[in-house]
């Protein structure tokens, strides 16, 4: 799997992403950060083939995304929008089974491969035990893992995740981040949007910082997250500490700097 984005311009009426280039290979975990409205989600949507470029190109293993049929693309790229909602009454395994849709047809309704892919996705997300529970009856972290399992069952080699942990508490967030990290170590390419800079710095192989639709920096977290960069991205003065253990950068904003905003 090799993803190449070159000189990408995206937008509706006005430009949202401007001349952006990046590349990603199998086994890499790329995390997109940046202030609200900087174009991260729009970029992700376009990488999922759901927003055609105004200019520039996205190539998957050398083929432009626009050349894939929706089904063929769904077998290569799995995209999970932000906080998706499931219809009522589904079991975990029912949700995951929908991931097989791009592999199915009129006379190929449930092959042995479908069955194996669902069980594997459930096992990979530690949900085998909970597979027959209803989605309403499990915790938020478990539900988020079920959505990931849906994407995994697609057996795509590129996963695109839009803020998969934004609604979760620390414990559940850790649970999902560890899973995503493990999946990338198993060889999948993953691009995710994240607001939490600490988690982003800890898990990203490549950290991509965006502002106003433009790429500000891309690289190792320690190289990307400098006080100057944080100020340039978020207009926030911050100090960068080093996490005990893995030495990843920890962004600590200076107190009182936005005191002109009163409640």
């Amino acid at each position, binding site marked *: 799997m090799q993803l190449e984005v070159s000189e990408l311009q995206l937008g509706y009426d006005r430009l949202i992403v401007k001349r952006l280039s990046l590349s990603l290979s199998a086994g890499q975990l790329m995390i997109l950060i940046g202030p609200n409205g900087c174009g991260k989600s729009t970029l992700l*949507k376009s990488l*999922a*083939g*759901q927003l055609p470029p105004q200019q520039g190109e996205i190539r998957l293993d050398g083929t432009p995304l626009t050349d894939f049929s*929706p*089904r*063929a*693309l*769904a*077998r290569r*790229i*799995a*995209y*999970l*929008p932000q906080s*998706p*909602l*499931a*219809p*009522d*009454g*589904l079991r975990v*395994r*029912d949700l*995951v*089974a*929908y*991931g097989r*849709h*791009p592999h*199915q047809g*009129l*006379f*190929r*309704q*449930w*092959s*042995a491969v*479908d*069955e194996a892919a*669902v069980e594997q996705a459930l096992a990979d997300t530690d949900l085998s035990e909970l*597979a*027959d529970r209803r989605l309403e009856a499990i915790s938020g972290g478990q539900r988020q893992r079920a959505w990931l399992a849906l994407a995994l069952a*697609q057996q795509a080699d590129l996963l695109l995740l839009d803020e998969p942990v934004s609604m979760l508490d620390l414990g559940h967030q850790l649970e999902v981040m560890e899973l995503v990290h493990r999946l990338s170590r198993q060889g999948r390419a993953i691009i995710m949007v994240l607001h939490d800079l600490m988690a982003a710095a800890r898990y990203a192989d490549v950290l991509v910082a965006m502002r106003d639709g433009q790429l500000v920096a891309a690289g190792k977290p320690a190289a990307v997250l400098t006080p100057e960069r944080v100020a340039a991205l978020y207009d926030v003065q911050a100090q960068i500490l080093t996490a005990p253990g893995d030495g990843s950068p920890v962004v600590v904003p200076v107190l009182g700097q936005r005191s002109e905003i009163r409640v």
Partner: protein
Amino acid sequence: MWYQSRTAGLVWRQGGMSLRLPLGAMLWALAGGSLLLLLLGLCLMAGDTWLAPADLLSLWRGEAPPWLRLLVWDIRLPRLLTGLGVGAVLALAGSLLQAVARNPLATPDLLGINHGALLAVLAGLWLGNSPLLGGALLAGLGASVTLLLLLLLCGRGLQGHRLVLMGLGLGIALRAAGEMVITQLPLHQAASVYTWSLGSLLGRDWSAVQQVSLGLAVLLPLARWLGQPLTLLRFEPALARSLGVRLLPLRWLALLLAAASAGLATALAGPIAFVALMAPVILQRLAPGTRLPLVRSALLGGATVMLADTLGRVILPQGELPVGVICTLLGGPFLLWLLWQAPPDKE
């Protein structure tokens, strides 16, 4: 070879082929079908002249007197079967529209589509003198044009309350236009047309049965074929697309089928309200599953119209209430209940 899958239930596989056998759904449909036959028998007996089971039995053996044969074969049975078919087609239209709009209130009656079909047939009567029952094509055209108009009015957004509110407004306008046309018809025609415009199965014969079964034979398999991708529309569009669903052709095809269904039902029985709302919603509540319950909704819709029509035939000491009136009497409270128990602001 047969397999029991923990996810997909019973599966048959041979070579590269694999077919699911949704056992639960099939049992439901079977039980519903048997119950329907029983109800059909009961409805055959009900009416101005009540029949006994022995009468039906004698009819079955071919020993019945001519008046009984006439009453059952030529009057009651075709009327009941037309009601059954019309209800099934209505439920189908409702299921399709609800799935595309992702809103249970998106039904051919609430969106004004039935009234578009009504107006088209009335206009046909007024301009030329196309027969009432031959109006299926005209009604289908009217339904399609109304749907198209509604989509234009709503702009690009097919979803949400806007569609339903616009549809309500459009329906009221079309209904008024229809009534205007009725006032322009010659008196003898206007009376029967007025009953039909309330939703009535009075005097439906075997040609109506033929039309509706032909329609069902085409529409039901097509809807079933769209069933799987339509199920994925229950997720948000971005997710459905990410699973490989071609949203645009799917939506257009489903809407076309819905318009054809609503047109057929309206041509045969007038604009019957609420069946298209009730049947799919009840089934999705009773048996929430991984697929849209299209066939079972159709069965329930058919049973509803047939029972409502029979009720309308026997409820008054003299004369009868049109089936459309009965369905509205039942459907109004159902709609209120649906709105009352819905979680506030799900959008």
